[in-house]
């Protein structure tokens, strides 16, 4: 779940989960995140914890005094040791736990008071209701039904993807969105309309919709401070949206200017539907509901199967949307186009072209399996194994030789010298490869000068 790449370089925003993103925020920011009256944020964070961390918090929920560390280790079996350490590290990173002396004087883990109150409010109830939730829903003339909202959401989201895929005829999108896309590292810095899609951009297009929305919102949160908007308010508004019910409409009375601006942005991405720019009601769409589950949740609910792959590498795409055909043509050669079907062939060249673009075969296979036609889902494995094996072989074919810079040490005088140098290099972890028979060792460039200094010192004695 967590592949937290150092977030200092925004272009490389690649957070898979909420935890990865939050652990990059300064602790003061986290503190008032938990203090926020609306508990939806605590709920989102709690749901993102590992199962053992969740159980620790639940056991502490109604216990006031601080429990010494030994209590927590007594709660697990030897088998659970690794999970226990992950949970402790996780809870400390998120500032949910802080070290404090327990009543018996031993050091223990203290549960953050605000986080405890937030979870208690969720589980016990009785606290103030979530803002904007219980205003008497003003009489909506014709409430929109769910299919309408879902179509609207897909349509708006496809506009963003169209722009990303650089298809001509894609209706224009706002400058803010372009800024968010650059921030997400999906398009190159040029703000010209010409699409400078990056490698991440290709991989983004291949992902399933919920993880696309999730990555997009994380990038959005990164650009919010640039627009001078309050990050906390924006985060808690997003998570409140994610726990609302689809099909119901909520009022926008009492929203701050920041929230209204976010609302307009989301309207453009299809995360919410509003009758008009100034309307006072908004409907959360299926893209934003249960967003907090991150990329993991039921991807099958979103992807209606439209791709059939046959054992002779032919691929049939039952769609008329140019976007879907463009995405599939990244890794296959399109042969014929019909009104509701596009027929293509997966060949060695098409796969190599995709690999050049930086798309890995695992992503291609995951994409094909996710959008597999229901008819294909009957057989097990879903994709014909001849195809997946061949694709993997074509990928391995390109990696037959691995080149790496290095520094060669050879023709040592004595076996003793050779062993001394090799052991020193391997202790440093810079020895890339060595051969005792012909007394040769290759050291990585970074380690080279240390090894040389070491060798000079040895020569002096």
């Amino acid at each position, binding site marked *: 779940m967590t592949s937290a790449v150092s977030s200092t370089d925004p272009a490389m925003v690649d957070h898979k989960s909420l935890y990865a993103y939050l652990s990059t925020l300064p602790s003061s920011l986290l503190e008032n995140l938990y203090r926020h009256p609306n508990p939806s944020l605590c*709920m989102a964070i709690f749901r993102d914890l590992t199962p053992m961390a969740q*159980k620790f918090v639940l056991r502490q929920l109604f216990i006031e005094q601080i429990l010494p560390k030994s209590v927590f280790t007594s709660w697990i079996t030897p088998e659970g040791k690794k999970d226990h350490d992950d949970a402790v590290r996780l809870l400390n990173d998120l500032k949910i736990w802080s070290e404090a002396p327990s009543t018996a004087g031993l050091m223990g883990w203290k549960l953050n008071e605000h986080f405890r109150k937030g979870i208690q409010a*969720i589980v016990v109830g009785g606290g103030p209701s979530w803002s904007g939730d219980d205003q008497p829903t003003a009489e909506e003339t014709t409430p929109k039904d769910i299919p309408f909202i879902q179509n609207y959401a897909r349509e708006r989201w496809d506009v963003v993807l169209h722009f990303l895929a650089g298809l001509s005829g894609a209706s224009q999108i706002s400058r803010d969105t372009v800024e968010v896309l650059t921030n997400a590292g999906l398009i190159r810095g040029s703000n010209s309309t010409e699409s400078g899609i990056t490698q991440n951009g290709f991989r983004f297009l291949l992902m399933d919709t919920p993880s696309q929305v999730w990555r997009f919102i994380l990038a959005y949160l990164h650009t919010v401070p640039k627009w001078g908007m309050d990050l906390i308010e924006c985060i808690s508004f997003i998570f409140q949206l994610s726990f609302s019910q689809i099909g119901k409409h909520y009022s926008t009375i009492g929203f701050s200017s920041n929230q209204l601006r976010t609302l307009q942005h989301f309207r453009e991405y299809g995360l919410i539907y509003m009758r008009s720019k100034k309307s006072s009601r908004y409907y959360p769409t299926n893209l934003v509901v249960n967003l907090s589950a991150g990329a993991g949740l039921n991807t*099958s609910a979103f992807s209606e199967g439209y791709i059939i792959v046959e054992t002779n590498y032919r691929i049939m795409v039952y769609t008329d949307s140019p976007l879907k055909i463009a995405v599939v043509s990244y890794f296959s050669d399109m042969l014929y186009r019909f009104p509701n079907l596009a027929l293509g062939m997966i060949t060695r060249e098409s796969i190599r072209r995709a690999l050049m673009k930086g798309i890995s075969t695992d992503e291609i296979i995951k994409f094909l399996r996710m959008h597999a036609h229901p008819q294909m889902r009957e057989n097990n494995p879903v*994709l014909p194994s001849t195809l997946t094996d061949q694709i993997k072989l074509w990928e391995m074919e390109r990696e037959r030789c691995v080149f790496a810079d290095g520094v060669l040490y050879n023709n040592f005088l004595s076996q003793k010298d050779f062993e001394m140098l090799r052991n020193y290099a391997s202790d440093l972890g810079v020895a890339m490869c060595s051969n005792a028979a012909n007394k040769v060792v290759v050291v990585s460039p970074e380690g080279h000068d240390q090894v040389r200094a070491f060798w000079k010192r040895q020569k002096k004695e």
Partner: protein
Amino acid sequence: MSGLTSLGAAQAGVSSGIESITDLLVVILDLNPIWWSEQLDNGVENGNGPPSQQYGLAPTLDQILIFLNSYLLIHPGNQVVVLGCLHSRSYFLYPPELINMPTDMPSDSRPEAFRIVNHTVQRAIQHILLQTSPDGEPAAGGEEKRETVFVGALSRSLCYIHRMQRESPKGQFVQGRVLVIEAGPDSSSHYMHFINTIFTAQKMNVKIDACVLGEDSILLQQAVDLTGGLYVKVENPGGVVQVLNSVFILDGAERSTMSVPEKIQVDYRAACFCHQKLIEVGYVCSVCLSVFCAFSPMCSTCQSTFKFMTGIKKRKPTDPTSSVPSPSSSSAAVAAVATKKARNGTGPNSNGKA
């Protein structure tokens, strides 16, 4: 499996058909009105200990709802079903059987999904308790009505889990688990249905957990032991939620990584059909396997007559050592019986105690 083993294996992991497991927790609440009201009465009359010593239905129910919310909070995929069982009837509380889903709900700091579950359960319990005033039950003996029959609720929950497994989409597997929260004493009237339901749960590998508030329950201990569940007897009425949130919230995989209460010693002795008394050595009818504590010429259940037997059973020469039933071995059997009688009174470990 297919293609290059390394490639095939990498792909087999995903395509084994099961992509995601959703956990379905069925909670069976014991709503036996007589037992709960008795709790309040003896609380007031002889006042044994401060009021917090007794189990009130309302405070206990609140703690159980907190447990349900915690369970739903852990993972969006978790599902909960609640059943209530009285002396002679069982009801689905959520999804509701008698009333329909309440729509107008005061909103508070709980998310909507949790509030729907809580309100439905509370509304359904009110409806049931008002509807079945004590005399509403079929006329049965006083003692009789004090006992709780959870077997019906248990078999209905297995039917429900079976339906959920049938209707789950292709790559999803529904893992069922049943938690019985029992207050009143056991009733052994439905032993047949009980044992069939337990074997079905075992076959569906549905774990049955038991959280007992009143006295210990032999039937629940057997159910927990046979299906590999957990059994905890809660002493302090205020601590119900702490026990539920610490022990019974753990799902299959976590029970190996987190410490759980150790296995209980279950008393598996059979009860004889004639006196319902637990016996150590008994006589079993070879046709209908009913158990009797003493030899009787006719079997009461299947009316088959028995040839008179002297209680000495020819030892079956099943192991190769004694191929022919030599006279010596039958005398050994007689000797064994004799010593047993002699030692019966004084034997240190003759576990005749109940």
